[in-house]
């Protein structure tokens, strides 16, 4: 066939009515002419008309052939079947609505989950060649990432030829003065190559140049797009302005583009210039990002950095002898393992929901096919091919699936829109959640899969029954089908529901366990906030210590504040690691986490003292150095130093304060009960508490206990702060309860998702079970009536129906438990304090499904008992 003809044939499909009309006109003209000629040959008008028609041949058959010739037959047929199917569905709106609704639930849940999956794991990051962006870490142990030192970073930058650019960053905060109270902004100090790593261009002005990174250069700042909008009115003239940051005017030289950097909370970027004191190989404080050179693999870059270190063993500190260097892709850092696992589990769960939805639809279509046996038998009897009948039924199913898919897409859009604000904090900042072409393609694929899964088999089955009926003659339909198939499908639905129910119950149990964890601190009546000391006004430890003491003293006597404390890390939050202590007579250092506290930290938080004393306001900058340890560290010390108790022991500490490595001796004066620090799935780390006054830090958290409202407490804190230093803003005001929820909220995420999917699944399988049971009661009416007429008790019939339901549910439940076993390893990493095979949970899941099974059986059973033998037998006679 020439392409031209193919095109014309396709076009003809859309022009069928006009072509039909034209053909009709030609036929009419033809017959008229033929009749005229016949009359001219001497025939009577009636004979002439008959003769004309005879010579013309079958008109309708010719029209069919005309359509076949000019169009594309199978496409035409599909269109006709789809129209027919749509018409059939309009006549059965309830059936159509149920099927479309079930499919919309299944497909919508899948599309929504896939949208998240795609946003987090599939979409490339919005940078040029994102694969080349890496982060470089020191790795004290496999799987542990550590920041690096100034001199190591400079080595990598100078000798790392595998990289196009290497940049370091140090995160903190700066106070922006805008007229009223100063505002605390998240700030990053970055080396001048930083933006070259990400290969972006500024929206306005320029990025840092080499002169900006020289010591003594004029202070400059680059604004995030959000900061530009919020504080500078998105004015293009901003490049002529100076921003007063930490009390010092900074020339604004550039504005970042909107987009990915906007989702980072960092508001201002200033050049990172190293001071002579920071030139060290001991202080690990820099986070390093780099751009690989074209064609360079991560492995090659990593080996090069390792070789650089190996070439100068004399400068590497002793304690780092076993450390190594890792080069990781940026994407790996943006998606943590829990999130990845959550998404994969959610995809699995939602796939089960889809399978259940398909099973339900298949079952509904099977039931409908059974009622249409007569229609199909007639069609087969008058010569419709078996394939044609199957095709017609599949296309009818496909119409339903497409409508379900469209509804599902709407549902997904709604879910994603509604859930996005809640998801913001849980997803990596680079994730752009949107229904894009990937989601459309996925939904289309899922919809076609549902056609195959739910429509193909029932269509084939119905055609078989139609053939049987046609062969048997149309007088009576074939005997009632044994419905094994529909029962098997329901059992499968029950099985999948059991898997989901097990998952949901396990996660709910795990969430309950997490929320019941004793945080080790009191939650009520506490307000927390952050404040940062600007480097310019607090350049030294002494100044910072003075500030800390003044603030702690001021808060102790502030009205409305009953207790107050300063610390470097909030409870239930991650605590930085990297500090070490040496025990007397033990060569191997103990790695600890370091928490600096001032005021009445342990009292404010109600952390019980186990031995000795806590840290109080009496522990001043010039006083004897002391330390307090938590139980975990106390136990380690007892084991390592072979002493009966840690209190009274003098240990050597090594830590960093104000950019300087400090080594000092300190006496352990007390042991406190461990408080929780972040991830509840790992055991409490060893934590060493030292007085903030003796080891000052510019990044502070303030914890205030107040009998008054949080707002009143905040007012009191502001009053004290103004008296001590009016230039320092407070930010991140949160109650301790909010801090707690933030830490444990991550764990509630899979539980909710799973719970929702399980609820949908159980609803669908209950519907499926109900459908099968009511149909089987309807089909057995005769048999039931005979039994009743012969004296069976109605209670027996109820028992039979219920027993049938329980058999199905039982088979499904056993299969489902098998599925739960298979699913267990995936779920294990998400659970807390409950085994993935917890027998109580498995039993509860089975009990739950049996209960819903009984509920589904109740109505059909009642109907079975109420069969009126006289009526039924008379009807059928």
């Amino acid at each position: 066939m020439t392409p031209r003809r193919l095109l014309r044939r396709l076009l003809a499909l859309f022009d069928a009515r006009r072509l039909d009309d034209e053909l009709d006109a030609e036929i009419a003209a033809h017959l008229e002419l033929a009749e005229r000629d016949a009359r001219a040959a001497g025939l009577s008008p009636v004979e002439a008309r008959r003769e004309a028609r005879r010579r013309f041949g079958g008109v309708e058959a010719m029209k069919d052939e005309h359509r076949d010739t000019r169009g594309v037959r199978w496409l035409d047929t599909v269109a006709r079947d789809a129209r027919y199917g749509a018409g059939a569905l309009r006549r059965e709106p309830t059936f159509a609505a149920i099927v479309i609704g079930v499919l919309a639930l299944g497909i919508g849940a899948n599309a929504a989950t896939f949208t998240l999956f795609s946003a987090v794991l599939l979409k490339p990051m919005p940078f040029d060649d994102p694969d080349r962006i890496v982060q470089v870490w020191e790795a004290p142990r496999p799987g542990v990432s550590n920041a690096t030192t100034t001199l190591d970073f400079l080595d990598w930058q100078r000798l790392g030829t595998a990289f196009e650019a290497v940049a370091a960053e140090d995160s903190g905060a700066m106070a922006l003065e805008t007229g009223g109270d100063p505002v605390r902004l998240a700030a990053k100090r970055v080396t001048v190559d930083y933006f070259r790593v990400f290969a972006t261009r500024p929206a306005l002005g320029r990025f840092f140049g080499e002169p900006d990174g020289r010591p003594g250069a004029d202070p400059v700042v680059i604004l995030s797009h959000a900061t530009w909008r919020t504080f500078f009115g998105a004015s293009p003239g901003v490049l002529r302005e100076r921003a007063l940051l930490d009390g010092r005017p900074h020339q604004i030289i550039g504005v970042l583009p909107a987009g990915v950097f906007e989702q980072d909370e960092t508001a201002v970027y200033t050049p990172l210039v190293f001071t002579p004191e920071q030139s060290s190989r001991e202080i690990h404080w820099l986070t390093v990002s780099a751009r690989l050179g074209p064609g360079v693999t991560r492995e090659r870059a990593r080996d090069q950095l390792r070789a650089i270190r190996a070439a100068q063993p004399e400068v590497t500190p002793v304690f780092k002898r076993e450390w190594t260097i890792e080069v990781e892709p940026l994407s790996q850092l943006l998606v943590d393992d829990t999130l990845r696992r959550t998404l994969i589990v959610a995809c699995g769960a939602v796939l089960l929901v889809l399978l259940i939805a398909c099973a339900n639809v298949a079952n509904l279509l099977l039931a409908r096919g059974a009622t249409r046996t007569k229609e199909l038998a007639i069609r087969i009897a008058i010569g419709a091919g078996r394939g044609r009948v199957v095709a017609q039924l599949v296309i009818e199913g496909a119409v339903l699936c497409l409508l379900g898919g469209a509804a599902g897409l709407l549902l997904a859009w709604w879910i994603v829109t509604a859930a996005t604000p809640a998801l913001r904090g849980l997803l990596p900042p680079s994730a752009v959640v949107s229904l894009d072409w990937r989601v459309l393609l996925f939904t289309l694929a899922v919809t076609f899969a549902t056609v195959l899964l739910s429509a193909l088999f029932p269509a084939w089955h119905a055609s078989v029954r139609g053939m049987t009926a046609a062969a048997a003659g149309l007088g009576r339909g074939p005997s009632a089908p044994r419905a094994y198939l529909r029962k098997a499908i329901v059992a499968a639905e029950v099985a999948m529901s059991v898997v989901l129910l097990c998952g949901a119950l396990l996660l709910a149990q795990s969430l309950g366990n997490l929320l019941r964890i004793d945080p080790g601190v009191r939650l009520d009546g506490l307000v927390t906030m952050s404040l940062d000391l600007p480097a310019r006004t607090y350049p030294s430890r002494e100044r910072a210590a003075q500030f800390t003491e003044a603030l702690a003293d001021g808060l102790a006597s502030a009205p409305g504040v009953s207790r107050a404390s300063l610390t470097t890390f909030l409870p239930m939050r991650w605590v930085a690691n990297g500090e070490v202590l040496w025990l007397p007579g033990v060569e191997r250092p103990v790695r600890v986490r370091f928490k600096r506290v001032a005021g009445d930290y342990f009292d404010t938080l109600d952390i019980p003292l186990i031995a000795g004393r806590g840290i109080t306001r009496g522990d001043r900058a010039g006083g004897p150095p002391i330390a307090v340890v938590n139980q975990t560290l106390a136990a380690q010390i007892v084991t390592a130093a072979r002493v009966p108790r840690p209190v009274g022991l003098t240990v050597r500490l090594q830590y960093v304060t104000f950019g300087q490595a400090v080594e000092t001796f300190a006496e352990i004066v007390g042991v406190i009960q461990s408080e929780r620090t972040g991830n509840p799935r790992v055991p409490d780390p060893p934590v060493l508490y030292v007085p903030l006054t003796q080891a000052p830090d510019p990044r502070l958290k303030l914890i205030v206990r107040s009998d008054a409202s949080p707002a009143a407490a905040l007012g009191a804190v502001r009053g004290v702060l103004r008296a001590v230093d009016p230039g320092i803003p407070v930010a991140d005001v949160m109650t301790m309860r909010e801090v707690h929820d933030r830490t444990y909220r991550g764990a509630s995420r899979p539980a909710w998702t799973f719970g929702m999917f399980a609820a949908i699944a159980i609803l669908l399988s209950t519907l499926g079970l109900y459908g099968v049971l009511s149909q089987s009661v309807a089909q057995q009416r005769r048999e039931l009536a005979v039994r009743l007429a012969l004296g069976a008790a109605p209670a027996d019939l109820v028992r039979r129906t219920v027993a049938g339901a329980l058999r199905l549910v039982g088979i499904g439940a056993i299969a489902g438990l098998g599925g739960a076993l298979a699913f267990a390893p995936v779920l294990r990493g998400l659970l807390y304090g409950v085994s993935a095979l917890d027998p109580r949970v498995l039993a509860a899941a089975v009990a739950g499904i049996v209960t819903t099974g009984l509920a589904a059986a109740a109505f059909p059973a009642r109907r079975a008992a109420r069969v009126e033998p006289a009526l039924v037998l008379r009807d059928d006679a």
Partner: protein
Amino acid sequence: MSKRDMSEPKAELPHGTLDLLILQTLQTLGSLHGYGIARRIEQLAGTERLSQGAIYPALIRLEQQGWIGTEWGMSETNRRVKIYALTKAGVAQLQLEVQRWRQATALVARFVEAKS
């Protein structure tokens, strides 16, 4: 008793020749309406060989191939009717088909007349 039986040409034109007959008719007589084409073929082939209606599916096929063109005209009974005419491509196609037909008949003739 199925409908299909009625649409088959009765004493059957040789398979595949209808297109050629239509093109040749239009070549010989110039533009014509459907009835005129059918009459001409009947005159030459005999009335029993063709149901007149059978030319219409062939006409639409030839039109879609671009071998014949149509325009609307008036029949002798004053009805709007499609008038068919050979296109340039149709003239070329006709030559090709005639040539093919000659080759085919010559081949068959050689086989039929071959003695041993």
